């Protein structure tokens, strides 16, 4: 019998479930862990597993969190960039099979001063007055454009540019398009062309120099021209006000209840009937509240300078709650940099590892309470135009581009008038005296964004690129033109 013992033990051991090492989880914040209070940043999550691993990783920053499911086969690894709001400490919860639930605190360095990122292969030090310099290596650069909000200005050299992977390059191009301040030191001609072609704000925020000193000088000079402030929700408050769809329904339901109850009181004295009416009405109303689906609303507001090749947009995807429950808002895939509009609002973003993007935002909602997701990004545009004052109060608006414009609206001096569709090279002569008071919230918002003593052109846009846009979504493109009315 003893002779059989060793082979049996070996057989038992070989048939036991394979217990590999615990999954390895590595967290790497972008920008070497630097950010600024109230800004967005990014944390790269890398998971390596020797055995099949399932679970989830959650990164919480204040009231907001991002949760990514993990589903790995043996030997696979997962790398994921999770967008997070900056905080002094990120709470990371790792809940994977084969390992005990783990909580980690990931510290971030928050700077009150503007941050100057120095991504220089030479490792040279440099500074700009008032900025806090942060030395960076290529791996520190994020893969999401939203994370560039952490860095106020960035200096890169050609070697660093060459070391960036496609994801990082895409985010850098997106940052340039969003009028981010970037200084390139002796860039390759091709890289410069790509970035300059994509840069927003007429590429005024993108500078280069043959040496670090020259690039820094130009970057300092560019600080004299502030980037145009994107419109805030308060600028467009009238346009963004959620439709009170639940309010009339509640009014109707309660009026119906009081009517039925009054009839019951008038026609019966049965205590059972009198008590049953409000009980049934309460149950019916509770069921009704949970069966109503909130109606989402999407407003996209884009602005571009005349002749700019890129327009910057802000989008608000909002809906009013209809009951006290968890409300899952699908993140629109066609729009970039999704986040909760209210940073104090508790929200959980579900990140899809396959797409490396948030797919759902979950809010705790209540009746009448609006919840909103904000997006920001850019898209190519062609609205090359000139506005020339003529005699009297007349103006000539000319399409100087190579593409025709649809009909829009012309805003000047606090009034609005129709602008006809214009083919390339065509012009329209308008009289300021024909302007009328704004008739809708969009033109009122556009007038508020029109330069003082200047003009603006407003077009309604088709949201073809946002396939999952809700019905009734609206989008606008405003081109403000400085000038003398």
């Amino acid at each position: 019998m003893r002779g059989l013992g060793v082979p049996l033990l070996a057989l038992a051991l070989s048939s036991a479930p394979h217990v590999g090492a615990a999954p390895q989880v590595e967290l790497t914040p972008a920008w070497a862990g630097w950010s600024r209070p109230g800004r967005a940043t990014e944390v790269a999550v890398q998971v390596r597993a020797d055995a099949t691993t399932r679970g989830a990783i959650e990164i919480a920053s204040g009231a907001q969190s991002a949760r990514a499911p993990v589903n790995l086969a043996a030997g696979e690894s997962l790398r994921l960039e999770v967008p997070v709001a900056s905080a002094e400490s990120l709470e990371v919860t790792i809940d994977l099979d084969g390992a005990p639930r783990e909580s980690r605190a990931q510290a971030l360095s928050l700077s009150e001063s503007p941050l100057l990122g120095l991504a220089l292969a030479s490792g040279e030090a440099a500074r700009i007055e008032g900025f806090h310099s942060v030395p960076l290596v290529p791996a520190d650069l994020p893969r999401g454009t939203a994370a560039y909000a952490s860095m106020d200005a960035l200096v890169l050299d050609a070697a660093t540019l060459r070391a960036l992977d496609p994801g990082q390059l895409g985010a850098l191009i997106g940052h340039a398009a969003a009028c981010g301040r970037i200084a390139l030191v002796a860039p390759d001609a091709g890289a410069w062309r790509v970035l300059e072609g994509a840069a927003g704000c007429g590429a005024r925020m993108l500078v280069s120099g043959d040496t670090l000193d020259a690039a820094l000088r130009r970057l300092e000079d560019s600080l004299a021209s502030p980037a145009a402030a994107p419109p805030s929700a308060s600028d467009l408050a009238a346009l963004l006000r959620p439709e009170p769809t639940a309010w009339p329904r509640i009014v109707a339901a309660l009026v119906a209840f009081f009517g039925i109850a009054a009839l019951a009181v008038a026609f019966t004295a049965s205590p059972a009937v009198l008590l049953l009416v409000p009980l049934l009405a309460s149950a019916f109303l509770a069921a009704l509240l949970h069966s109503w689906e909130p109606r989402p609303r999407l407003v996209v507001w884009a602005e571009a300078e005349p002749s700019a090749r890129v327009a910057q947009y802000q989008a608000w995807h909002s809906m009013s709650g209809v009951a006290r429950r968890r409300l899952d808002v699908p993140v629109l895939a066609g729009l970039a940099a999704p986040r909760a509009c209210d940073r104090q609002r508790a929200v959980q973003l579900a990140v899809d590892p396959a797409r490396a993007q948030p797919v759902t935002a979950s809010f705790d909602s209540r009746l009448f309470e609006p919840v909103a997701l904000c997006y920001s990004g850019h898209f190519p545009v062609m609205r090359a135009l000139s506005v020339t004052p003529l005699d009297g109060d007349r103006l000539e608006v000319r399409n100087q581009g190579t593409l025709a414009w649809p009909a829009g609206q012309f805003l000047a001096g606090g009034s609005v008038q129709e602008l006809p569709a214009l083919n390339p090279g065509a012009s329209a002569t308008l009289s300021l005296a024909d302007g009328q008071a704004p008739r809708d919230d969009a033109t009122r918002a556009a007038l508020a964004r029109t330069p003082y003593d200047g003009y603006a052109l407003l077009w309604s846009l088709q949201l073809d690129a946002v396939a999952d846009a809700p019905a009734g979504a609206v989008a606008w493109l405003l081109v403000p033109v400085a000038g003398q009315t």
Partner: protein
Amino acid sequence: MSDSRPGRLGMVLGLTVAAAGATWWLGATQLALRQSLGTAALAAALLAGLWVTRAMLLAPFALRAGAIGGWRHGISSSLAIVVAGWPVVVAAASAAAPAVMGIVLGEVALLVAAVALPAVGHGLRALLRSPGSAALAGTVLGGALSAALWIWGTVWISVNG
């Protein structure tokens, strides 16, 4: 007082309180929505107001109804005061921030009072052996309870803001 009157009167009182509260709440909510202001505080105020008003009505009404009409009729009319506001409570609870459990416990407390107070009124009638005296005693006792509730509510609000 006929058999049917207490139940109807309780229902009418409950519906009146609920309709007044709902009208104020829906009007204030509409104004808040137009100005993009929060509505949760309005719903919480409605819930608190509805609870206090029903509790203050319940004390004299239930004691008096129990003393005059007996325990069974007292219960049915007192319950009507409480449950007539429930559809409004359900809607306001959906819009308010306080925990649902607290709201439910508040309603349960009202239900317990709606069952217990008529029994006390009935006991007063048995004790005093006169429906008139019992009704008077019930009304006085209920008024005192309502006043105590009002004072307690005022103190609670001044302490808790």
